């Protein structure tokens, strides 16, 4: 018989179950399989009712984030061999409500993302005939790292502050706000400051740094937040020393 590995997968259907339970599956152990391959094997061969999100299976879409042995991971980029001989515990992303099995409810994240206005804001759009907004490679470099975010929410599942205070804007939303603040084409930094410099914005962060550690795209949200704290603190002292400049 071929080698197998045990997966312990969280099952939960809120309309039928009191609480989430764990179900074990034996799946073939292959060195080139990621956790998502094992889940697909279960769905195709063992239990078609298993529910989970996935799409691109190549670390671009950000759908397949789950807790693997207690750590937030993209299951498409997490090899079974890392956990051999097993068992591998697969659970839905921490701190989010569960819709079913491994599928989390992301409305809260979507609302937070929207609240920081992660798009280019212009005081006035120039007419199309004047062409594109040009940018030098240096200007691109200032925000490029933060633009790599794929909204996979692993950083939220890693953030103990988000776990304790659900009002906290959270790592990805702040990093994405900073992505646009640093964009030379953007003029919305002041609009965003009102949201970001609240307690539930940047000041909620206690610089645990787990968000940066688990980020599969090396966005460094913790760095973005500290950077923004410095900006906001500077603004604060500036408006203290020069109150006539305050808006």
């Amino acid at each position, binding site marked *: 018989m071929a080698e197998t590995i045990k997966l312990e997968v969280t099952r939960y259907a809120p309309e039928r179950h009191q609480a989430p339970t764990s179900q074990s599956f034996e799946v073939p152990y292959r060195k080139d399989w990621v956790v998502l391959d094992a889940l697909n094997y279960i769905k195709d061969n063992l239990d078609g009712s298993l529910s989970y999100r996935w799409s691109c299976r190549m670390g671009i879409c950000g759908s397949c984030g789950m807790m693997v042995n207690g750590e937030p991971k993209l299951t498409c980029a997490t090899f079974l061999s890392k956990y051999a001989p097993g068992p591998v515990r697969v659970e839905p992303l921490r701190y989010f409500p569960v819709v079913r099995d491994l599928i989390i409810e992301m409305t809260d994240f979507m609302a937070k993302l929207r609240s920081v206005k992660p798009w280019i804001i212009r005081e006035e759009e120039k007419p199309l005939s004047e062409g594109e907004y040009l940018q030098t490679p240096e200007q691109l470099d200032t925000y490029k790292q933060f633009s790599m975010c794929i909204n996979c929410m692993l950083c939220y599942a890693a953030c*103990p502050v988000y776990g304790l205070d659900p009002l906290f804007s959270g790592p990805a939303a702040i990093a994405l706000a900073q992505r646009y603040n640093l964009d030379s084409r953007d003029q919305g930094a002041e609009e965003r400051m009102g949201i970001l410099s609240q307690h539930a914005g940047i000041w909620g962060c*206690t610089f645990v740094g787990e968000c940066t550690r688990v980020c599969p795209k090396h966005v460094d949200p913790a760095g973005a937040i500290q950077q923004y704290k410095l900006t*906001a603190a500077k603004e*604060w*002292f500036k408006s203290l020393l020069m*109150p006539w400049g305050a808006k």
Partner: protein
Amino acid sequence: MAKKPIEPFLWGLFSAGGVVAALLIPVHLFLFGLAFPLGWLTPPGYESLRALASHPLARIYLFVLCSFSLFHWAHRFRYTLYDGLQIKHLNEVITVFCYGGALAGTAAAGYLLWGLR
């Protein structure tokens, strides 16, 4: 003018204190905790060290070193109590204890340094 949030100010002290504590305190610890007692460097005499510490610039330096480090501690310890022990409901007590402690320490440092002759 709208009421200013206090958090940027506290964070400013925290962050300045972090820099001071991380960069300067190890130097003091190395000199007075290791290098002088173990004889790696010849320790300055009591009188000359006292004269050095009495210089106005040295006093300002020591005051900033003590005060900022204490405010760094206050902010960090406040969140350690909030999140680590999960006693956020004691918000007022914790805030008074932490920042009050830092203020008291700052006052004590100021008093001692002021009286240094």
